[in-house]
C-alpha cells in the first residue's frame, strides 16, 4: 500500500497555525530589566590546578535565559588572585583567574541588591601516565582517588575513530585503556583529560565545579 508521504506533517502544521497562530520567537530579555529577586545565577568553574575559568549565566526563576546587560556587576574572588570582573558576551559572562585555591566566590552586584555564590572545587589531583608507550600495551593512568566524586576520563587521538569516554562508578585512582581501544599504523598523540566534578543547586544559584587535568602520551604501534 502507498501513503502520501508529506501530508500528515502538513496537517499538523495547518491545525497548529489555525488554533494558535504562527508567530516568530519573542525578542531576548535583557537581565537588567528583571528584578534581582527573580534572577538565577548558574556558574561553571573549571580548574586545571593553577588557572580557573569561570562562566556565568543568568536566567529568570522561570528558567528563561537572559542576555547579560553590560551594567550587571559580576566578579569573581579567589585565593591569591585580585578580584576579576566577568566579561559579558550575550547570554554568558567569562573570567579567567590564576589561582591554586579550591574555593571561589562569584559576586553579583546591582543597585537593587547583591548576592554572592560560593563555589567549592573538588579536591585537586595529579594524573600520572607514561610520556611514551606502545599501543599494544595498556595505557595506564593513576591519580589520587576520591570516592565522593568519581572521575571521568576522555581520550582523544587520531588513532581512535571517536573520543573514548570512561565514567568510573567507583574511583580506585587508576585506569588503563586497553590495546584494542586504539588503532592506526603510525605514531600518534593521545590526549587524555581526567575530570572530577561537583554540582550544587540552590533557590537562586546553581554551580558546577570541575577539576580537569590533561596529560599527553606519544604512542607507537
Amino acid at each position: 500500500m502507498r501513503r502520501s508521504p508529506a501530508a500528515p506533517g502538513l496537517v499538523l502544521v495547518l491545525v497548529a497555525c489555525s488554533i494558535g497562530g504562527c508567530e516568530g520567537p519573542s525578542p531576548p530579555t535583557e537581565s537588567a530589566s528583571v528584578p534581582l529577586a527573580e534572577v538565577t545565577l548558574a556558574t561553571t568553574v573549571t580548574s586545571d590546578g593553577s588557572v580557573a575559568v569561570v562562566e556565568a549565566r543568568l536566567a529568570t526563576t522561570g528558567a528563561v535565559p537572559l542576555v547579560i546587560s553590560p551594567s550587571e556587576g559580576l566578579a569573581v574572588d579567589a585565593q591569591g588572585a585580585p578580584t576579576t570582573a566577568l566579561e559579558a558576551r550575550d547570554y554568558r559572562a567569562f573570567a579567567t583567574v590564576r589561582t591554586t585555591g579550591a574555593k571561589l566566590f562569584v559576586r553579583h552586584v546591582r543597585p537593587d541588591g547583591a548576592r554572592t555564590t560560593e563555589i567549592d572545587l573538588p579536591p585537586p589531583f595529579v594524573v600520572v601516565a607514561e610520556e611514551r608507550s606502545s599501543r599494544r600495551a595498556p595505557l595506564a593512568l593513576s591519580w589520587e582517588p576520591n570516592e565522593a566524586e568519581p572521575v571521568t576520563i576522555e581520550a582523544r587521538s587520531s588513532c581512535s575513530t571517536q573520543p573514548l569516554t570512561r565514567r568510573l562508578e567507583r574511583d580506585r585512582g587508576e585506569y588503563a585503556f586497553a590495546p584494542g581501544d586504539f588503532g592506526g599504523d603510525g605514531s600518534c598523540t593521545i590526549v587524555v583529560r581526567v575530570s572530577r566534578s561537583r554540582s550544587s543547586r540552590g533557590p537562586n544559584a546553581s554551580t558546577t565545579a570541575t577539576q580537569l587535568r590533561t596529560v599527553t602520551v606519544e604512542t607507537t604501534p
Partner: protein
Amino acid sequence: MRAVLPLVALVACSDVPSPLSSEIASRDVRIALRLAGTPTGTRATGTVTSPAADMRLVEGDRLVLQTSTTTLPLPLDKSSFSLDFPAYGGEVRVALARPDGRGRDVEAKARLSEPFVVEAPRAARLSAPIEIRWSGARDATTTVAVTGACVTTQRRALAFDSGSYVFVAGELERRDVAAPCVATATVEKASGAATQTTTATFEVGP
C-alpha cells in the same frame, strides 16, 4: 483554511494498491539486506522496494537468497522478507531473479564474519581485571560489551581487534547493586549491515 483541512486529511489517509513487480523496471528496484548471525543460526531480513515504497512479486519474478553452499527461496510479505538459516560465515546474496525480457536481476550482498567463540573467566571478580577473549578472523568492526544485574554496562567499539579486551578492576562494578550475579559478555563483529554475534555468560563476585 477550514476548507483545505479535509482535503489534506483525505490525501494523507488514502491508500492505493501496491504496484506489481512486473510493472517495475529493474533500475527502480531497491533491495536492502541485513544479516544477524550467531553460532546457532543466521537471520536475513530486509526490504524490496520500488519508488512507490513496496510491491507484489508476480509473473516469474522470484526472490532468492544465496550463500556459498545453498540457494533458498525468500518469501516477500509486502515489501519485507525474513529468513532463518543455519550458522554461516561468508558472502550472502539476495537477488530478485527476473524472467527473460524484464531486465537484469537486482541484487544486494553482505559479508558475514565466520561464527566464533567467546570465552569469559569462570570465576570473575569485579575488584580484579576481567578479560574477555574471542576467536575468529579480524575482518570486521568488533564491539565487546558486558551486562548484568550487578554490573555497570560497558560497551567498547574497538579500533584494533587483538582477540581480547580487559575491563580494569572496578570498571564493571555498580554502587547500588552488590555482586554476585550472572553477567553476559557479548562480542559483535559488524561489516556493513551484517553482524555476527556471540555471547557468553559468567558468574561475577565482588
